[in-house]
């Protein structure tokens, strides 16, 4: 399926011009979230503000819990979700990090909580601007992770996320991320669906845990021992078995994600690639740009220009970061010659995270593609079209020489403009 996400031309639906944050808030409202517990943080705050406005005006029947920190917000979300409510929250960077302790708890207890993440760089030094550093920190806590490319996708992915997370075959929390400021504060027209249509797509939650009924469930997340415990009443699984079931559910969730995406596309007429990643001009392409979020949005605009040079080039914009769609990516990249990866984060001490994830996913492929990776746009620095064009040229040159270099390269770094750049000085006080 092709992208028809951003196509409001002659739309007969209700179109509103909204920021990414407000698109997320509308999705929560249309999903009829029952409990919202959040703590404001830049650049996510308008999500929380808008939802509290909806509740105050009576447009959303939900409990809004005012808490003193993100840690409490996440804890309250876990508790509310375990009591059978549909639950969501939103955060950014250090807010997400303060929630961290509760994140593996939520996935281990298999609570279908949705977090909206307006991405932001992680300090120090202090920065409120965009990159994907916060998004990748929760790679290994057992959540489903989406990255969106425009405001319509934020709305649509949120609606889908509830359905995916609440599916009895899945029961895993989901994080829906979008670039801070670049999408969170940028207004664009989006189609909003009727409440009745959303209601039929997303029926009320029938939760597998409901602590409000003590006769049904006596508790969640008890202490588990290294081994299984055999009792007269039955055998209790150990930690290992619980976590294995989470891993299996994550692997299997890919089918559900595709299924929900296709159902959504059929019902509402908007599709995002195969639901796992979006492709652009890849049919005849042997060279592929691989990126996500704002970076792929920027790359999309230069494909045409690069094609005019005679390059057979296309774009794969990753939508689903966890579970990593290994099988589908291997299938897609079979026979491709070059991949250029642009990361808007660093896996510190290694290279860009998308880059090494992709390399690992393609391990063992016959005649594997040449992969070159670049870092761009940390801390909100502009990701310019020129960087992408230059990156493509550079990697094609290296590929021609058969020069496989693992060294990561950086675009937009302005060390030459810092006249007396000195690494030791930087360590002392972050430069002059």
């Amino acid at each position, binding site marked *: 399926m092709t992208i028809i996400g*951003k196509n409001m031309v002659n739309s007969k639906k209700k179109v509103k011009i909204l920021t990414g944050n407000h698109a997320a808030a509308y999705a929560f409202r249309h999903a009829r979230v029952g409990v919202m517990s959040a703590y404001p943080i830049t650049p996510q705050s308008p999500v929380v503000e808008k939802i509290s406005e909806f509740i105050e005006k009576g447009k959303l029947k939900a409990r809004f819990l005012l808490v003193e920190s993100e840690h409490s917000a996440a804890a309250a979300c876990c508790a509310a979700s375990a009591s059978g409510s549909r639950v969501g929250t939103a955060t950014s960077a250090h807010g997400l990090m303060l929630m961290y302790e509760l994140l593996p708890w939520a996935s281990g207890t298999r609570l279908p909580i949705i977090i909206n993440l307006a991405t932001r760089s992680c300090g120090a030094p202090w920065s*409120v601007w965009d990159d994907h550093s916060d998004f990748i920190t929760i790679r290994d806590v057992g959540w489903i992770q989406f990255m969106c490319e425009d405001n319509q996708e934020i709305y649509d992915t949120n609606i889908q996320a509830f359905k995916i997370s609440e599916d009895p075959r899945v029961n895993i929390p989901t994080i829906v991320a979008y670039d801070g400021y670049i999408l969170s*504060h940028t207004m*664009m*027209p989006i189609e909003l669906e009727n409440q009745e249509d959303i209601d039929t797509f997303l029926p009320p939650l029938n939760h597998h845990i409901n602590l409000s009924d003590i006769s049904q469930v006596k508790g969640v997340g008890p202490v588990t021992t290294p081994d299984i415990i055999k009792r007269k009443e039955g055998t209790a699984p150990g930690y290992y078995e619980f976590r294995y079931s989470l891993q299996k559910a994550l692997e299997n969730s890919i089918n559900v994600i595709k299924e929900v995406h296709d159902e959504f596309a059929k019902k509402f007429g908007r599709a995002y690639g195969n639901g796992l990643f979006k492709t652009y001009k890849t049919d005849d392409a042997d060279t592929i740009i691989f990126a996500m979020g704002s970076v792929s949005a920027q790359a999309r605009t230069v494909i045409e220009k690069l094609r005019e040079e005679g390059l057979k080039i296309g774009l794969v914009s990753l939508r689903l970061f966890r579970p990593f769609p290994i099988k589908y990516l291997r299938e897609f990249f079979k026979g491709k010659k070059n991949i250029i990866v642009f990361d808007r984060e660093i896996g510190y001490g290694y290279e860009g995270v998308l880059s090494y994830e992709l390399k690992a996913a393609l391990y063992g492929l016959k005649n594997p593609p040449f992969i070159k990776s670049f870092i761009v746009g940390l801390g909100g620095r502009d990701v310019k079209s020129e960087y992408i064009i230059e990156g493509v040229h550079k990697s094609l040159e290296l590929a021609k020489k058969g020069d496989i270099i693992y060294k990561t390269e950086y675009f937009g770094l302005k060390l030459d403009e810092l006249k007396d750049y000195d690494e030791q000085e930087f360590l002392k006080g972050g430069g002059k």
Partner: protein
Amino acid sequence: MEKVEKDIVEITFHGRGGQTSVTGSQLLAECAYEEGFKDTIAIPIIGAERRGAPILAFTKISKNKPIRTYDSVKDPDYMLIFDISLLDIPRVLATIKEGVIVIADSVAPLDKSKFPDNVKVFIVDATGICIKRSFMHSSGPILNIPMLGAFGKVSGYYGLDVMEKVLKKNFGENRLEKNMRVARDAYESVKEG
């Protein structure tokens, strides 16, 4: 008066914190969409905002094509200057390039000696209009409405009827007449300068 005809038209808003320029950029996106532009986006450049600090925001509007770039505007078609003292800042002045159309809140014609050739300048006394109509908020005049009225006239992209619809949707029936009065004043009084 000075209509730019191209696929995607880019407008920059230069104001100071409290002058309502960010909201202005968003209202412009809505006006264009209401008028029938197929896609439109409003992008604020957010930093440590505070009253009086220089603020920058962009709106891109497109007749037919979807807009895919969310990066900042480097080469605007129109510039809306909410405070002409911002032109003393070199990096603001540097964005005034050949062929750009400037609409400034000013009583007197601007000093064009620092501008490159071919820059068209329009002025409107937005502050004066706001004071006359007591169209103020806690920290000063609400400049975005008259500036958008002036922009509608200069660009010819939308008329007062479209502004009326958008303002009604955003601020309600009660405040509509007040909003429209300043929009109309600016629409009628914007001139070359």
